């Protein structure tokens, strides 16, 4: 049924709230890709079978991922009027014990990680679960959670990503409703500009400015596109955002389309993310049924729809002009800019392209205002950023912190340092375009400018931790091998230059390198940076340049051995 009035919207919220806080116990299982793969699916199926067989009055719901990946599979239990309890490292064999406890109005305490008494979903809605189970620590008391500031991940792992009603219950689509029924597009645009939101794909271009440039172009047709290609190895925050809270992305795009004056949107997703594709397709269908996508959204004069385009496995397609070529059915080879996409993008029309997480920031900005948003983060680096903290770190997971947080806080306070008690040696940020940062520079704040100053980039948000046993020359070689394989071959510096970097690194690693090779390595890297056509080539040598700068002794040792 279409939502075409305020009363209709409120009614749908009420329906959603009944699902989120039913009068019966509710059990959820985290079923994003990782949780499903490490046993979540089996746990869900077993619980479902037992509940059916025993005829239990329990609501069993799949959710996305709450981000504490190391503790997966995660199951939550909520009794009416009691806190939401997170169980961790649940095994299939635990399901009987879980159901026994739930039937008796309790929870399996030995499996409990923490409890949530109330949760502010930031869109004007706080879900009050209740109090009780004093022996279980509070969510805030868990260091991994307590040091985070969840804005983008405010719903993930708590709501059912396949049910639009639950999203609406926690304030979802209320920003879109507010804007479409009560704000001029210029007001929406101004709020995003004032918020200082910068592109979360890594380059940090002001999102509002890009919107304004696209809005001011004269054209019969314009497009907005969401870049969900997330090609950086080691990064998976966009996957989780799409899998765990797909409607948040859709709402962000609706607001962008309204502000810019666009009727057609596309989400470009990599083929490696089948679950994200499935959930987004489902979410788009649901939004259309509710009149939130399609003609006359919320009964207003504004119409907008989204379709999905699926990539086919090419890292370079994260580059904007290559992404467009891919959508148009051509090989993903970049062309020089200008023309920029805002001048001539998809099918030659003005196009605004933003990363998944950039779009996801928009609803909360419009709902709470730019003044609220700018209190989070650092000057000129407002808001939060989600990072995937992976590799040799103790607490692996998705971490959301305000921009301006130090690397040390992320790696040690949230991540609890190296895995298995080993020393952390470095982190790598920004994927194949980023660099390796030694532990002595971990006081660096994570913002666009500070990371650039030490030779790396924010990138899409992958932070790969490397411990004392990591061979940094091998890491440099790994990234150059990756970039060599993914170079589209159009320009010579990237195609040939990277190949020769790889040959040099192979020779050095084989113990056959010379001092002269180290000079060549640096010269060639700098040449590739200066002369490549697109961002892939211009940034590909960064892993070599940063390891040469910060871990030169490892190269020298290999050369002199």
């Amino acid at each position: 049924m279409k939502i075409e009035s305020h009363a209709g919207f409120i009614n749908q919220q009420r329906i959603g709230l009944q699902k989120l806080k039913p009068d019966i116990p509710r059990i959820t299982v985290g079923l994003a890709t990782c949780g499903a793969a490490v046993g979540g699916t089996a746990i869900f199926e077993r619980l479902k079978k037992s509940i059916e067989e025993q005829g239990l009055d329990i609501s069993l719901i799949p959710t996305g991922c709450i981000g504490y990946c190391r503790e997966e599979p995660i199951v939550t239990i909520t009794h009416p009027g009691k806190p939401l309890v997170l169980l961790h490292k649940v095994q299939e064999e635990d399901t009987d014990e879980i159901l026994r406890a739930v039937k008796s109005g309790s929870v399996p305490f030995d499996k409990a990680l923490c409890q949530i008494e109330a949760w502010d979903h930031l869109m004007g809605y706080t879900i009050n679960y209740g109090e009780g189970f004093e022996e279980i620590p509070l969510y805030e008391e868990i260091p991994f959670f307590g040091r985070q500031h969840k804005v983008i991940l405010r719903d993930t792992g708590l709501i059912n990503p396949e049910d639009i009603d639950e999203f609406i219950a926690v304030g979802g689509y209320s920003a879109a409703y507010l804007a479409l029924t009560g704000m001029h597009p210029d007001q929406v645009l101004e709020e995003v500009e004032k918020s200082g939101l910068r592109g979360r794909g890594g380059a940090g271009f002001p999102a509002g400015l890009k919107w304004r440039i696209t809005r001011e172009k004269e054209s019969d047709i314009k497009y907005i596109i969401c870049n969900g290609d997330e090609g950086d190895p080691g990064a998976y925050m966009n996957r989780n955002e799409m899998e765990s809270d797909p409607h948040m992305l859709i709402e962000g795009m609706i607001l962008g389309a309204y502000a810019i004056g666009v009727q057609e949107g596309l989400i470009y997703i990599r083929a490696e993310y089948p679950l994200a594709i499935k959930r987004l397709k489902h979410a788009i269908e649901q939004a259309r049924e509710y009149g939130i996508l399609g003609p006359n959204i919320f009964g207003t004069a504004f119409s907008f729809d989204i379709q999905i385009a699926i990539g086919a496995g090419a890292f370079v397609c994260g580059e904007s002009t290559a992404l467009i070529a891919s959508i148009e059915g051509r090989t993903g080879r970049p062309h020089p800019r200008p023309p920029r996409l805002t001048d001539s993008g998809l099918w030659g029309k003005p196009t605004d392209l933003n990363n998944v997480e950039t779009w996801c920031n928009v609803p909360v900005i419009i709902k709470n205002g730019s003044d609220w948003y700018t209190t989070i983060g650092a000057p000129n680096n407002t808001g939060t950023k989600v990072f995937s903290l992976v590799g040799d770190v103790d607490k692996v997971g998705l971490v959301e912190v305000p921009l301006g947080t130090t690397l040390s806080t992320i790696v040690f306070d949230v991540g609890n340092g190296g895995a298995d008690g080993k020393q952390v040696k470095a982190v790598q940020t920004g994927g194949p375009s980023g660099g390796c940062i030694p532990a002595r520079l971990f006081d660096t704040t994570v913002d666009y400018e500070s990371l650039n100053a030490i030779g790396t980039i924010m990138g899409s948000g992958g932070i790969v931790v490397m411990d004392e046993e990591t061979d940094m020359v091998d890491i440099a070689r790994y990234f150059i091998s990756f970039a060599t394989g993914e170079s589209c071959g159009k320009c010579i510096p990237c195609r040939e230059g990277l190949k020769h970097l790889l040959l040099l690194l192979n020779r050095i690693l084989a113990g056959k390198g010379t001092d002269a090779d180290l000079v060549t390595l640096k010269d060639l890297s700098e040449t590739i940076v200066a002369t490549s056509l697109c961002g892939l080539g211009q940034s590909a040598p960064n892993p070599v340049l940063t390891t040469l700068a910060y871990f030169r002794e490892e190269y020298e040792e290999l050369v002199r051995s």
Partner: protein
Amino acid sequence: MDEKILDDIISRYDSPSGRLLGILGEIQNSERYIPRESLDMLAAKLSVPLSQLYSLVTFYSFFSLQPVGDHRVTVCMGTACHVKGAAAILKTLEQLLRLPEGVTEETRSPVTTEDNAFTLEIARCFGACSIAPVLRVDNNLYGYATPDGLPAILEEYGWRKHED
């Protein structure tokens, strides 16, 4: 590939945006590779030069022009998997599946066992970095992989240890 299946796939793409890669992706999923005759049919139906389709299927790593084995084993080579030992996973799989030539870095092309039971290949990153190292067999993801644990995974797909 049956012409009717192809017509069905094509009918699902009414917008030109994302159309060609979408259709090729569905052919790949349906046939598990891109048969030459499907490309010919598609070129004729859409009035697209065969050369353009060929350039797409050879540029994008998701497509394969060669039939693959009954089961597809894909090892993730993302950064987190790399630091967690993906190289050892790949090497062990090459030994277990008796593929001495292996998946070379230069070509990055898949290799298939003689009995056509398994195809071994690498992927850039599944984005399942939290459970690294990761491999995928057909559509099933396996996290926290170890070389010692690989025979048990392969056995689920009918692999048996060679007696020699």
